[in-house]
């Protein structure tokens, strides 16, 4: 969970930075999308590096899910008889309890998101438009429900990371009493920055700051 999660966090950082390029204008953003596909040229053919990264991402996501499902199944088997009293949680709180169902919702979001901006099937502009036009069309004010869906998904990603980043250090044996505070602050900072960074684009389009 920790290693694959770490790969996904690195992807999210890169993805967020890329998204923010939209604030530099249509040309810059489209140019960036083009560059993603021509990375490494002419040493490697068109779309080689991007494809490699995509395969890596799919592997990371699948392994991440596989670990989560096996842990959940082990948990179910480990307590065949449930408690009668209402379950009470005394520890860390909200983020920790959203990990499992939050993860499932994030997966559904990723599927939609890929159909939207990678395969263009559910995008209003479709494949003939530029990446910039597709994003702007996506989050148009009248499609507020799509924006809302993106916002909810990104908030869930934020919660997922808040617990997940800290938990990854613990799972890799890198947490101690001495660095506990630093790790909590790091996890919170990274999740807040990523959440705000991802929220900026859809909200900016909906409110007309990017058009």
């Amino acid at each position: 969970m920790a290693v694959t999660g770490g790969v996904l966090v690195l992807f999210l950082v890169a993805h967020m930075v890329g998204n923010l390029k939209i604030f530099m204008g249509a040309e810059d953003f489209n140019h960036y999308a083009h560059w993603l596909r021509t990375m490494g040229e002419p040493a490697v053919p068109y779309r080689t590096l991007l494809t490699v990264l995509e395969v890596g991402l799919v592997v990371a996501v699948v392994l991440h899910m596989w670990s989560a499902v096996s842990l959940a199944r082990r948990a179910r088997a480990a307590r065949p008889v449930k408690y009668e009293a209402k379950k009470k949680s005394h520890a860390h709180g909200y983020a920790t309890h959203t990990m499992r169902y939050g993860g499932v919702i994030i997966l559904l979001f990723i599927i939609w998101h890929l159909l939207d901006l990678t395969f263009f099937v559910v995008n209003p502009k479709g494949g003939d438009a530029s990446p910039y036009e597709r994003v702007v069309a996506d989050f148009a004010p009248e499609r507020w429900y799509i924006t809302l869906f993106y916002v909810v998904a990104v908030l869930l990603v934020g919660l997922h990371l808040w617990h997940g980043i800290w938990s990854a250090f613990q799972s890799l044996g890198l947490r101690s009493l001495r660095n506990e505070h630093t790790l909590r602050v790091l996890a919170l900072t990274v999740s807040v920055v990523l959440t705000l960074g991802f929220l900026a684009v859809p909200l900016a389009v909906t409110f007309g700051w990017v058009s």
Partner: protein
Amino acid sequence: MKLTLRIWRQSSPAEKGRMVEYPVEDISPDASFLEMLDVLNEKLIADGEEPVAFDHDCREGICGMCSLVINGTPHGPERNTTTCQLHMRKFEDGEVIDVEPWRAKAFPVVKDLVVDRSPLDRIIQSGGYISAPTGTAPEAHSVPVPKADADRAFEAAECIGCGACVAACPNGSAALFLGAKVTHLGLMPQGQPERWDRVVNMLETHDDAGFGGCTNTGECSVACPKGISMDVISRLNGDMLKASVGGKKKR
């Protein structure tokens, strides 16, 4: 105090078991939770009924024998406290209190509130020891131990093996117990010879016993009557990685 108890009754491992309601009266707020159950049992015996079976031994919070999930919380509402050290003044007069056994596949119910915790003993047998030469005790100062390590080892050694961490864990994992043992022995020079085999073997026994996997929810630490901190699990994971991926395990 007047209370309504809802207690798990199960006459044998094979029987299905159910919650049974018992009203109790005239309970002193200064009675411990177990003393309150003693009062109930005396009444049940006088009425010719089967008393409620529950585990206990020292009744002073050091042996790890008492258990009970009280209103959904292992060892009840007071932090850093075993059930035997929990007093009735922590409850409201007239309260309804649910009393259940530890719930885990690895801890089958023997009778009523008594569960079989021997998987924890098997985990200890598979690595929770050190090899020490017998004979005269060596001069204490011949093996220097840094003060910080001695303190951390001592804190981890406070684990009384009650199993509350398992009862509290949403995954039914005994990772806090494992972590406490691995930390306690692994921080001391005497624990070094078996250090890498210990962690692998104890974890293997743990998984084979049917305990779940840790997802760092932190419920264990809060439930632990000795307040053992979750950083022992980080140490467990670190030692496990060094022993397996790092290839330090010898046998």
